[in-house]
């Protein structure tokens, strides 16, 4: 039954690719920041699946909460030029 584990890896990595593509593709900064948060959360799940809970905690704390917060503070002090989409 080991193939179940491999299918799990495949699905998580596929959704990781989808969110990472969204980060690159969006022109709106806040949408890109949201996608970056989702991408790093899914990366944390992938570390969890690889049984590395240490790295998973670090990724969830730094990548999800703090990096998104700092990016949003940075976006807040820019001006919005492109249309909302």
């Amino acid at each position, binding site marked *: 039954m080991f193939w179940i584990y491999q299918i799990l890896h495949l699905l998580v990595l596929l959704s990781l690719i989808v969110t990472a593509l969204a980060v690159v593709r969006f022109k709106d900064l806040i*949408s890109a920041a949201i996608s970056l948060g989702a991408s790093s959360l*899914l990366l944390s799940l992938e570390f969890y699946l690889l049984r590395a809970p240490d790295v998973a905690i670090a990724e969830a704390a730094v990548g999800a909460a703090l990096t998104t917060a700092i990016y949003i503070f940075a976006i807040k002090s820019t001006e919005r030029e492109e249309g909302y989409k």
Partner: protein
Amino acid sequence: MNFSNPLFIAVVVFAIYILISALRLFLGPTAPDRTVALDTINTLVVASMVALGAAMWEVLFIDIAIVYAILSFVTTLFIAKYLEGVEAS
């Protein structure tokens, strides 16, 4: 690890749901839609982490799910607070 545990199969179904929600995050026309998709992904990931920790019989792995639930809440609040000050065009 016992791979024929029903919790493992549930986690596979949760991974399919995560993929569908990630598609909404890719397609969603406005920023609040994407935030809703992010929130859904967070809840599903917490659920799959709890199920995986129970299937692996590891107590420490549930702690990560608790940390994850609280930290994703911080992320959602930051995005919502930014969006409050923005006007839609």
